Structure formats: C-alpha cells, structure tokens
C-alpha cells in the first residue's frame, strides 16, 4: 500500500505574502478552496481574519476578485453578487462566500438562513476556528465546551456546547452540505468540486485550527486537525438534500484527551471535565451514526471509499442536481 499521497490541482491561485499568522488553518482552507474552484471565482468575505489575511490595500492574496463586506452579510452579499453575474449573463463564475464561525454561527446566521431557504446558487464555506479571532479570541457559539477564550477565562471556561450548525442547515434541506478538514485536502477539494457542479445552495463547514487562538505551536496545525477527525470531535460527512447522510472517513477513535492535550486553550480542564467532553463526543457521534446507519446508500458509499471509486456518489450527484435544479427553478419561478 505504501504512503498516503495527495494529488492536488497544481494551479496555485492563492499568493504568498498574505497576512495570516504562521500555521494558519483558515489560510490553508482558502488555498484548497481556490485550487478546487479555479480562477473563475468571486469570493465574498465578511469581517473576519480573512479580511486581514487577504492583505492591505492595494494588495490582495486571493488571486481572484474579493468583495469585502460587513460582518453579518456574507450570505446576502454573495446572493447579490450571484444575481449581478446572472444579470450580466455570466452563469459560469462561481460565487464563494467565505466566512468565519462568528460570521456564520452568530451574527451572519440570519442572512445565511435566508440564502439557504431561497436556495441561492453559491457555495458558502465557513472556516471554523471556534472563536472571534480577528478581534482577539472572544467566544462564539462555535467555541467548544470547556474552552478558554478572552471572554470565557480559565476560571469559568465556556459552559455551553458548540452549536450544531450542520443540523441547522440540514433542516433547510439544501442540496449539498459537507464538513471538511485541512488535514484531508484531497477530501476537501473533492467536496468543493462536487459543490461546484451542483446548482443551489451549498454549505461546507471546514475545521480550521488557529495556533495563537487555541494556543499550540504552528507546526501542529495539521496534526491537531487530524486528531479532531480521528477522535470523532469533528466527523467528516456529506449530507444530500438535508436528508441523506454519508460518512467520508471512518475515524480511528482515539481518545478525545489526546486531542485536547495538544492545546493550551484546554489546559485548565480537569479529568472530570475531559470526561464530560468525551461523553458528549461519544453521544453526538452515536446520534450522527444513527443517521447513516445501515441504509443501502451508506453501504454503497462505504464500498466506494474502500475502492477509491466515486461511481455511486456521481450517480447520486446527478439525481441531486436534478432535484436541486427543480427546486431552484421553483424558487425562481
């Protein structure tokens, strides 16, 4: 079998010289997204780290047009940009809304829900670094239970669980919904490419570690991302039409403790608290597992995984595209 290797599209759309911190997961997310989508793409970025990362005027790192917009408006601006392109007869350019977790789970949720409900034809990528990083590590509703942030100090760390954005979006019955991780670039790129070929609203939730915000050495960004997947903290899944769940990678099931111990933001946790986190992760996993429990489709998609073939998902893709188109027509008509 030999070594695991990745074959990524060679074109580097993202330029170096950007303003991300060393080891930034959000930046890798953008790099892979642009590799997947190519140069015929317009990116809409609300206030977040990425409004800084892209560079100060007159510089931009993205290599494609970027529209910087207000914190709460990623989805509504992207809807507008898409309508503008359509009005010009450009149905080819992909519109990508690229927002942080604050701009997605919190303040941008209303615009996001609206666009999802209207089944707007663009891709929304939420790079999730689990706090408001740009403004100095304040908690968001994506911050996990037990984590330290500047607004949830170690003496009273975050008491609430992370909001389940996936279920919120699944409830909107959007044609394509997926989670991805910077540690699995081939999986992420395949999902974004799939999303590109589907009409209607596509949402991709990407686990994007932040070395200064989570307090770990930048060199461990990928390792930590991988551990999040392997410990079931962040399952890699796809959901079609908000209903059909498929698992992209079976986690090894390493203890959550191993993942937590890598990060300073969890340093204050005692064994009991870590136990609670492990119990939550296990419970959430079981609940998720039940959704892709032994249906015919799931066993098919697993077989695909083992052979590396994508045949059945492609076929499903077609039906989905049809559904999506139908719905899109309905919403337009």
């Amino acid at each position, binding site marked *: 079998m030999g070594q695991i290797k990745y074959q990524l599209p060679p074109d580097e759309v993202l330029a170096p010289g950007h303003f991300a911190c060393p080891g930034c997961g959000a930046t890798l997310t953008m790099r892979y997204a642009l590799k997947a989508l190519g140069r015929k793409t317009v990116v809409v970025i609300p206030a977040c780290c990425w409004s800084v990362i892209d560079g100060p005027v007159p510089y*931009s790192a993205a290599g494609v047009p970027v529209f910087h917009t207000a914190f709460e408006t990623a989805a509504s601006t992207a809807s507008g940009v898409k309508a503008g392109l359509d009005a010009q007869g450009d149905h080819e350019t992909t519109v990508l809304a690229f927002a942080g977790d604050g701009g997605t789970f919190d303040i941008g949720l209303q615009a996001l829900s609206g666009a999802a409900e209207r089944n707007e034809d663009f891709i929304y990528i939420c790079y999730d670094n689990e706090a408001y990083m740009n403004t100095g590590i304040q908690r968001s509703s994506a911050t996990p239970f037990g984590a330290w942030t500047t607004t949830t100090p170690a003496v009273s760390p975050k008491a609430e669980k992370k909001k389940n954005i996936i279920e919120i979006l699944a409830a909107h019955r959007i044609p394509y919904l997926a989670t991805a991780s910077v540690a699995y670039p081939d999986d992420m790129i395949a999902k974004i490419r799939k999303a590109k070929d589907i009409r209607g609203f596509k949402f991709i939730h990407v686990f994007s570690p932040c070395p200064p915000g989570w307090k770990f050495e930048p*060199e461990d960004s990928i390792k930590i991302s991988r551990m999040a997947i392997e410990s079931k903290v962040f399952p890699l899944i796809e959901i079609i039409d908000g209903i059909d769940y498929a698992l992209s990678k079976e986690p090894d099931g390493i203890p959550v403790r191993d993942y937590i111990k890598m990060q300073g933001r969890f340093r204050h946790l005692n064994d009991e608290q870590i136990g609670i986190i492990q119990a939550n992760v296990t419970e959430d996993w079981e609940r998720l597992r039940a959704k892709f429990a032994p249906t015919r489709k799931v066993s098919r998609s697993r077989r695909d995984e083992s052979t590396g073939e994508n045949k059945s998902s492609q076929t499903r893709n077609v039906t989905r595209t049809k559904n999506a188109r139908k719905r899109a027509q309905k919403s337009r008509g």
Partner: protein
Amino acid sequence: MTKYKFTTVEEMPPLAFSLESTREIPTGSWRHVRPVYRDKNSPCHVTCPAGEKIPDYFELVRQKKYKEAWYKILEDNPLPGVTGRVCYHPCEGQCNRAGYDGAVAIHNIERFVADKNFKNRKLPAAVEARKSEKVAVIGSGPAGLSCAYQLSRLGYRSVIYEADHEPGGMLRYGIPDYRLPKKILDKEIKDIEALGVEIMVDSKIGDNVAWSELERYDAVFVAVGATHSRKIGAPGEDLKGVYTGIDFLKELSTGNVPKVGRQVLVLGGGNTAIDAARSALRLGKRVTVLYRRTRVEMPAVPEEIEEAEKEGVHFEFLVTPVKISGSKGKASEIELMKMQLGEPDESGRRRPVPVIGSNFSMRADTIISAIGEEPDLSFLPYSFLRKGIRLFVDDEHTTGVPGIFAGGDAATNPNGTVVNAIRAGKEAAISIHEFLGWRSRSNGVSHDAVKPEEVNTFYFPHEGRVEVPRITVQKSKTTFSEVNKTLTEEQALTEAERCFTCGTCLHCDVCMTFCPDVAISKDESGEYTIDYEHCKGCGICVNECPRGAMELVPEGAREAVEEVEHI
C-alpha cells in the same frame, strides 16, 4: 507595481480596490526558524555493519529496478546472497517501523534482490583507476573476500591465500546447507574472482606457504578467522564419538556424513552448537543441547534457537560437563554438574557458578562440543601484538606492523558474525588504500539517524511484516535443503513499500501540500524550492514530512544554514 493615479473624483472607483498581489510583501521577515531540506541517515543504514544504503536500494526495488538495487548493495557488501540468508540483521532491530507494526524484513528483501540477479549477471567494474600495488589477503572467509573485493573496486590486484581446499571460510565449512546453499556462496565468490581477485586454495601461510612469501606484496590483510574449537577441558574429551562442532560441520559440508549414535549431546550455546544440533537432527538423531547458562544468555541468534526448538531439539540449561566416560575407547556417558547464575561478568551476562554436589549423568552416544572457537595465529611472527587469544588491531585495522592489517574473527573486537567480517574487510581496504598514499573518499558514517518520533506514521497505514515462506517443520527436520524461501516478487514489493524511507526525500509533495504560505514549489526536475521571501517558518512542512527529510534550523545562524544547504 502599477501605480494608479486619479486626477479627478470622477475617475475614482466607487469602492477602494486592490489590484496588486501580496507576493510583493516579504513576509519571510517574520520568520525566526527556517525549514531546510536535509536528507538524514536511516537507523538501519547506520546500524548495518556493512553500511548498506538500505532506503536507497529499497526505492530501486519499488521501481522494480532490481539490477540497480543489487548494484547499490554491492557498493558495500559483495555477499548479499549470503547476508540476506544468515546475517543476524541488527538493522531490523533498529528499524523505525519496529515499534509501529513490526520491523521491515530487511534481510529478506536483501536476499530477494540477490536471488533476483542470480542469473546472467556481472559485477560492476572497478570504480577507481588501476593501481600498480598488489595486496595479499590471508583467509577467504567473508572478511578476506570483502577486503579483496573492495580493493579491486579501488583498482588494486589482490591474491587470497586460503589454507582449505575451497574458499569461503565458515560460510562454506561452518554454516550448513539448510541455511546457506553452496551454490549461492559459489556464485558470489565467482563474481569476486571475475573482478580479477586471485584465490590460491590449499595455501596455508606458515605451512606450505612461508610467511616470507608475503614480503613481495605492498600490504597484507590477515583474515584467518577463528577456526580452532576450544577444548572443554574435561577428561574423556579425546574418546571416539566426541567431535568438535567445527569438525562435525566441516565433515558434513564436504559430504562425508560423520558417524553419530542415536543420542546426541551438544555442548554450547552459540551458533555452532545450534547448527550442529539441527544438523544431527537431520541425520535422524535425538539431540539435546546442554548449556551452562539460561536461554536468554545464549549467544546464538534467537531465531535459530526457536527454529531448533520447533524442529524438536531438546535443551538443558544450567549444566556443565565434568567428565566423559566410555568403553573400548568410545564415549557412552557424560557426567554433568548443575549451575546457577551469579554476578554479571565482563560480558554483562550473569556468570554461571557450580552447584556443589549436584552431579548427574546422561547417556551419550555422540558428543559434539561447541563451546567456542579461537583463532590460530601460530604462523605469525612474535612482533605482533595480541590481546587475549586475538590479534590486536586499532579502529583502522592496523596491527602496529606497517603494511599489515587484520580483521574479522581473528582480530580484536569481532562480534563473530559474517557482516562484521564484511565490515572489517571493507574498512581495511580503505585503510590499505590510504596506507598506499591515496586519499579515500570519506566513508564517515555519521550516526545521527532519524528517530522514530520524526517519522509521521499517519502516512503509513498499518500493514504487518511479511510472513517469510518456508518449508514445513515436518520436512525441514529431515532434509538439508534450505528451510527459508526467498520472498516472492509481490511479497518483496509489499515489504519494500512498508519501509518509511527514513531521512531520504521521496518527492511525495506532502511538505508542499500543507504550506499555508504557498512558499514551496517544485521545478520540472522534481526538486523543491522554499521561497524564503515568504515562508513564515511555521514548521508544518517539517512536521508533516512523513520521513524526517526536513529540518528546522534557527534563523540567523547563517553558518548552520549554509552547512545544511551544502549537504
């Protein structure tokens, strides 16, 4: 950079916009550590006494370039068919995969490569220009063969003087056929001869060839091995039916099957003892090995002990012989004494001490004593320094007498193995080359090898070590044909794929894939360049490299950086 000049308000766009690329911003200045590509040694290479470039030839195996792989091994070892079978493979003990899911079966791949090239082959010609000097080698065991071979690669002519009727030393007369078939050895010796090495058999220095005969050579390498069996020092040792392990095995290997009774007792715990026991078993006898310490202290290779056990050899530990008795000049009984382990001796093993009054007797039709071998240095003039029973040499294999070098089992610090003899021959050839006034290319093996924690095992899915094909135990204990088989091509390829290739870049692109700063690029020739104008020194590339072929060095330590870049 293009400048935008707006002379009127109307010319200005409704929004601020950027048309320049951040490529112009030298974010590399943020960096305080610098990633560099730096191939490192693999622990297997550092551990292999012969210094085989294991990850390099494995890569050739994976590309199915079997001839090139063989040539790569031959740079360091002319006897891969031999070592692939009988080397005790210390390399595997240090393999970084050992703690993950089992060491790579290095010696089995080595054997596969050698066997794959068994037919239609020719060794590569000398690497250096021909020289006029001539070197004599005494002894055609692995040390002598390796030295003569390396000398011919360096352009020297050499003559090997061999006391026996055929070359090979213990490889021929010690190690039995079921572990090393003669045709393998013969082929590898022929290859060496084909390079111009002359082997004079039936030429014993100090006997039918005088020491003074060697004066016409420019240098001499003494590699006479340890061919004399140590005496047990018990009465009755000279009775009929008592053999030394070396004599017993030598008889067998020359085709004269020695007479042995039904109950065979073997004294000793080394390779000779085990080989004698397994050989006697193959003659259909009941065999018991008697050893004065316990199993863990046995110097024989553990795998061999296991094999012997599987085949049905019995073991008695913590016993020592007191007396052999018999009738009509023929041995029939041995008196033994029980031992117990005391304080550790200089070898670090616990010393066996007799238990007074514990004597008992055992029936013995044949006794094979194999308690160790010693070199016979009686042919050497007195001017040579000795240490204990061996000829004293320093790390360069010089004896103190100018122009005379020595190595292998006859000299100090051997560990009594084939591969150490091969190492000694190789190192001595380099020393001789230097003695004759040439500068040798550095052979210095640096010992900083990639540590297990520097391997990123994520990239290597679990895959257990290959099961070496072998004939059944039922069959093996009745025949002298080879027990272990060569890996199939498929097995060899799978096994070579298991190798992490510690420390050698395989151009897998992982470092480039994960750089958040797009600072790594690959040119047409497949080489990587790090753009230090933009690299922020996050270290992801170094941390993710599956095989420790990159390193982070402090920024600003210019010398360190330059040194590394020139490797």
